[in-house]
């Protein structure tokens, strides 16, 4: 049997890795970054949303918000456990950073990350009230769904499986956001929703990153990426735009 294939050429040919034992160092590093980005974003997203629960206008809304906080934390845990198999100290990790910390609403940080965690830039901005939370969740969950479609096919099988489990949960969060938004429109809050959409649209769009093509190619060769940043952003713009249309709002 031909056994002289390198891991690199195996990955480039679409091969799948299944445990930390034979993961090459650079692959390990990129995989860890990808997982840290997801975990930090979910933890920061859940932490930001936790403060919003009590602002829900009714008990149903508060249940929805609480469910989102619970499930995003749970999703972070799923991926953090895989990081743990690579040696990350999961207990310490969950507490090494104040996940509720936010910048100013007017801070302009583009796609850059803060110094000490890997959350997507968009999770550094504070949410202002219930309407704002619903719109942020509506736009961002669409972005997460687009990214998870790509991540569900990555070459590290345990993580691909985790993302396949997580994808329908995040999809449901998007549906809850849409239900909330429909209700707000009925209550005459369309203007406030539009203002929030205008605020979050460019910030969510920036979360797709501007990574160089060489970088995307390197990730692609390792099976850690299929779709380029620009292509994913375009897909999100189309899908999120349709959502705004359906609410009678304008695309920013």
């Amino acid at each position, binding site marked *: *049997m*031909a*056994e002289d*294939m*390198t*891991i690199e050429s*195996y990955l480039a*040919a*679409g*091969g*799948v*890795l*299944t*445990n930390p*034992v*034979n993961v090459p*160092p*650079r692959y*390990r*590093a*990129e995989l*860890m*970054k990808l997982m*840290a*980005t997801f975990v*930090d974003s979910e933890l920061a997203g859940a932490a930001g949303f936790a403060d919003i629960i009590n602002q829900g206008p009714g008990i149903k809304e508060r249940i929805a918000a609480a469910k989102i906080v619970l499930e995003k934390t749970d999703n972070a845990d799923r991926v953090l456990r895989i*990081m*743990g*198999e*690579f*040696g*990350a*100290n999961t207990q*310490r*990790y969950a507490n*090494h*950073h104040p996940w509720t910390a936010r910048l100013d609403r007017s801070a302009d940080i583009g796609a850059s990350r803060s*110094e*000490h*965690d*890997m959350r997507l830039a968009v999770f550094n901005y504070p949410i202002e009230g219930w309407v704002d939370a619903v719109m942020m969740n509506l736009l961002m969950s669409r972005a997460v769904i687009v990214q998870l479609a790509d991540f*569900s*096919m990555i070459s590290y*099988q*345990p993580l*691909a*499986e985790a993302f*396949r489990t997580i994808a329908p949960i995040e999809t449901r969060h998007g549906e809850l956001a849409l239900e909330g938004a429909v209700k707000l429109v009925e209550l005459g809050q369309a203007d406030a929703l539009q203002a929030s959409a205008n605020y979050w649209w460019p910030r969510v769009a920036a979360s797709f990153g501007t990574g160089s093509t060489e*970088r995307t190619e*390197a990730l692609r060769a390792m099976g850690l990426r299929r779709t380029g940043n620009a292509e994913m952003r375009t897909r999100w713009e189309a899908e999120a735009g349709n959502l705004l249309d359906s609410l009678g709002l304008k695309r920013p």
Partner: protein
Amino acid sequence: MARFHDLEVTDIHKTIRDAVVVTLKPANGSASEFDFTQGQYLTFRREFEGEELRRSYSICAGKDDGILQVGIKRVDGGAFSTWANEELKIGDTLQAMPPMGGFFTPLDPSAAKHYLGFAGGSGITPVLSILKTTLSREPRSQFTLVYANKGVNTIMFREELEDLKNLYMGRLNIIHILETDAQEIELFTGLVTQEKCAQLFEHWIDIAHVDAAFICGPEPMMLGIAAALRAHGLSDAQIKFELFASAQPGRARRKAVSAEAATGANQTRAAVTLDGATQSFDMPKDLSILDAALQNSMDAPYACKAGVCSTCRCKVLEGEVEMVANHALEDYEVEKGYVLSCQAYPLTDTVVVDYDQ
């Protein structure tokens, strides 16, 4: 983090000339830690000439066998597998971490599924555990095994598989594909490639009714089989892989000991390798290796910058560094020269580090 436990060797026997089956019994009341799921593996550690080696081997026992058993095939130049095949004996103690891995699907006693397993050589070990457990716990399910080997005399668990065929009459189907030994049916000779799979799916395997497939073998074989399965309509969620690279290195080398000591000056000459390219620059000793690399426009990997996640791990090839915090690397990794670059500050006047190792 997972801990190592002592396991006593209660039986060891050869299944073929260069592979042993080792039965283990958890010592010191850690039996519950080793309550495995079919298809999982154990990671062992042992010191060879003062250096710790870790090796993973799949459990070959089924859930209902009532024992913990792994198969270890000797690999040319492999320190651990050679030792296990030549020196390990009943009564010895091995150290292993609790079972790990996700090479399985959940079982349901009421299910009537058709599973397809592909094993290449010693890749049979987890597949054997899966098929035994599945046939015993899902009485209405069927299992087809395609088992690739060089020749008849290298087939691990050959007799045990024959016994299982008799035990589960009509529910277990085994197709041996032999690379060099000619067989009555020509299709069963050669390598298991994408084309070979496609031919098997024509007359021998009812691929349209397969619920899940398991593949464990060398890289090219896994690629070929996966491609064939996808081409015949299986989704990624239906295909489970287990890869233990043929390239688990025999022995890791220690880092070179630096001849040069520190002078006390604050500057260090650093050489950092990343993605095959090496950059040299001067850096102050109160800057971390990671920050120095980032300041020099290198795309060095990191995430938490708190010594927790281990994303920024690199290897020190020359010189000495000091880690101010380490919550992720284990002692044996540190001994081999690995450091968390976000926590590592140079002590010597030159340091050479590599993110590619």
